[in-house]
């Protein structure tokens, strides 16, 4: 199974920057005051998904199910 990439649901992101501070790949950055994952750098480690206090980061392809 191909690994999913993390994506930030921008309607849910409250821009605390927690995910950026823990991403070991340095794959998350600010775009228009929301956290955005660069999927070319994401290695699917799940740290950002678990860290987000409101669950705004999900796996690509599963976002509709949540």
């Amino acid at each position: 199974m191909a690994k999913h990439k993390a994506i930030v649901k921008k309607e849910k992101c409250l821009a605390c920057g927690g995910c950026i501070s823990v991403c070991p790949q340095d794959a998350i950055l600010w775009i228009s005051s929301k956290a955005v994952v660069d999927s070319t750098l994401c290695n699917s480690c799940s740290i950002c998904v678990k860290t987000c206090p409101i669950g705004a980061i999900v796996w690509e392809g599963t976002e509709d199910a949540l």
Partner: protein
Amino acid sequence: MHYDAVIIGSGPAGSVTARFAAETGAKVLIIERRAEVGVPVLCGEGISQKVDTYKVLEGKRWIATKMQGARIFSPNKTMITLAAEYAGNETGYVVFRDIFDQELARGAANKGAELLLNTRAVSLLKKNGKINGIKAQQFDETIDIEADIVVGADGVESRVGRWAGIKTTLKPYDLETCIQYTLTNIDWDSPYCDFFLGKHVAPGGYVWIFPKGKDTANVGIGILASLSDAGKAKYYLDKFIASQPALKKGQPLRILTGADPVAEPIQSVADNLLLVGDAARQVDPITGGGLMHSIEAGKYAGETIGKAVEKQQFDIKMLSEYETRWKESFGKKLHRNYVVKEIMLDMDDKTLDMLADSLKDYKFEEFSTLSIIKALVTKHPSLLVKLTPLMKLARA
């Protein structure tokens, strides 16, 4: 554009650095990625009254409530009361952080600092291998800002340090992931900042209630990111609020998320670059409080920038004066509290309850680590084993 120093971030660390640098005559620019200084607020808004001694804030508009102290509730709700002078950096005033930050920025501007909003640092500029400014995105335009010193005051998520090769990525066990409501219409009129501990309350962290006027308070939670899962912080906070009859009718005026580094102090200087505030992990690893440290370190950073500009020397040797000053002043405390954080994370709820039971009648006027430990083990001798690492620290 050429500046002596460009400061990335207009939070307290950035503005205070700018203020003290500008005061020496240095030409200083602050850039802020957001559209308004201090907005959105990302903080529990507690600060020690020690802030008054720095004289960086005018008037009282930034104060929401003056506190008398703190109360800590163990998992079985045993209460410990601490007077404000012993309660650490997080109680004293509950502030309006948006006004607070804007007052600090105003102070910097009054001393001659310039500000650019909607301006995001994208990368460092280098000339002959040396940092000489930043590339930034201002609205839809890319601009080069030349500066002899780049200051990363860009918060917990700091990228400036990483660009200069300083490892700032946090491990999940060194980050508290937070969420807070400002609740109004609550039945809460207390002169205390309250902290609630327990595995089922806030794993690896705590819930706080910081009063903000008579029927309003900041009610928030931080949990250790290594014990977190998607949306867990919100889940635990909502559960806590539902369990408190006094908070149940509360309506939110604000919701915010936050991230708080509870890490060891790091290297904060490189050639032509310094880090200040959350970016330098100048945060108490036990309480997560950092406002007071940001202001103190900002003063040192600004003064060092002044000297560097006067001598036109911007290498790490020159800038190290800043690092030496803040590490001597509170770096050791941060390291010690990091060790205490690790000890506390190992404690189960029962141990925390025993600790609280030993301390509930303790008179905190005689405050020293050793005397507290003595009080603890007199009542609950079995605590002795768990506190051995603490006693080693107290003697060190």
